[in-house]
């Protein structure tokens, strides 16, 4: 039983090690409001889209441009009869797109975020439209959450039979008390 739990602790730990790095760095960035800089650029293309609604057309243009990210419905605005304006967003980019129905002419204002903003963005990200890694990240986050909870409990289980069990128990209790007291302070 003990060997089995140690193996599970080890392999689940290896599985969620990159997740811990991402979450550790992004948690520090959240805590100290670190976002990094951003840069902008403009580019243009010609895209034909024939979807039914404006949102469907916007998503068609996004896919035709090969962009990854969400198209918030509230961002889709028809500025005049021929011009459709919308955003495509992901943790690394914010595209403001103006697409001309009649000619297919597409103007894109692209804002690039820093790598730290990307780590903040994927902290808890549920999906990423247009990327095969979006669903993979969803499953990975789900598994890692449970793996982390398991690692905490199995770590206690693995430590307690040792000679220093009393010190280990005191450490667990002290950590829990500190967490409880500080949580009450901000509750």
């Amino acid at each position, binding site marked *: 039983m003990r060997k089995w739990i140690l193996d599970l602790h080890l392999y689940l730990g290896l599985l969620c090690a990159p997740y811990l*790095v991402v979450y550790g760095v992004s*948690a520090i960035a959240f805590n100290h*409001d670190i976002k990094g800089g951003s840069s902008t650029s403009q580019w243009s293309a010609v895209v034909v889209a024939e979807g039914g609604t404006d949102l469907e057309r916007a998503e068609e243009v996004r896919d035709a441009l090969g962009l990854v990210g969400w198209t918030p419905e509230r961002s889709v605005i028809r500025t005049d009869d021929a011009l459709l304006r919308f955003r495509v967003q992901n943790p690394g980019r914010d595209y403001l797109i103006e697409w001309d129905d009649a000619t297919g002419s597409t103007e894109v204002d692209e804002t690039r975020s820093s*790598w730290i903003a*990307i780590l903040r963005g994927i902290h*808890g990200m549920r999906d990423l439209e247009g990327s095969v890694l979006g669903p993979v*990240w969803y499953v990975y*986050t789900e598994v890692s959450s449970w793996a982390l909870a398991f690692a*905490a409990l199995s770590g206690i289980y693995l430590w307690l039979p040792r000679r220093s069990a009393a010190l280990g128990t005191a450490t667990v209790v002290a950590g829990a008390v500190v967490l409880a007291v500080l949580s009450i302070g901000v*509750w």
Partner: protein
Amino acid sequence: MYKTLRKIHGYLGLALAAAVFFYAISGWLIYHGGRFGEPVVVEARVTSDAFSAEAKDRAAARRIVEASADELAIVGRFKSVRPAAGGWHANFKSASVQQEVRWIPGQGTASIKTRTFTTAGALAGLHRVYGTSGGPAHFAFAILVDFVALAMLGFALSGVYLWWKIKRKRMPGWVTLGASTAATVGLVLQLILAR
């Protein structure tokens, strides 16, 4: 080296077991948002001369509402203030309570809407408490958050080292670590490099 790192990994893990467990479970709750139940909403109106004064900008509006914090029974820390509907809306938040104060200068009154979250909602709120502003309690909690975040990095790196030293058959570990690293690095690179 191995013994020292094992002790650090072990005792740090024991000390932060409760915090790590809490962040894992509350993070999962947030990830599956919407299962927290409806908050209890209470609205009240407070009369005070402070709300008669004109506020020329956000900083002045913040001073007005913070000066009346006791009368308004504010329990959270200041989050934001913005002009709206000819007056001002200010927001305060703690882990379990969210409060919105609305007032129009000259009227001498303010309305306050207090939302008290369910226990699950408050746990999700606690997961999102970060930043050093808001007084000694928030500062102390921010230090805990930093400590847990740095420990996460330490657990990841020391865990890989300990696996390397413990296991003679390393192929299953390489496959596990390789797959998770490929997914993470692949996603970050896609977001950095994609057009």
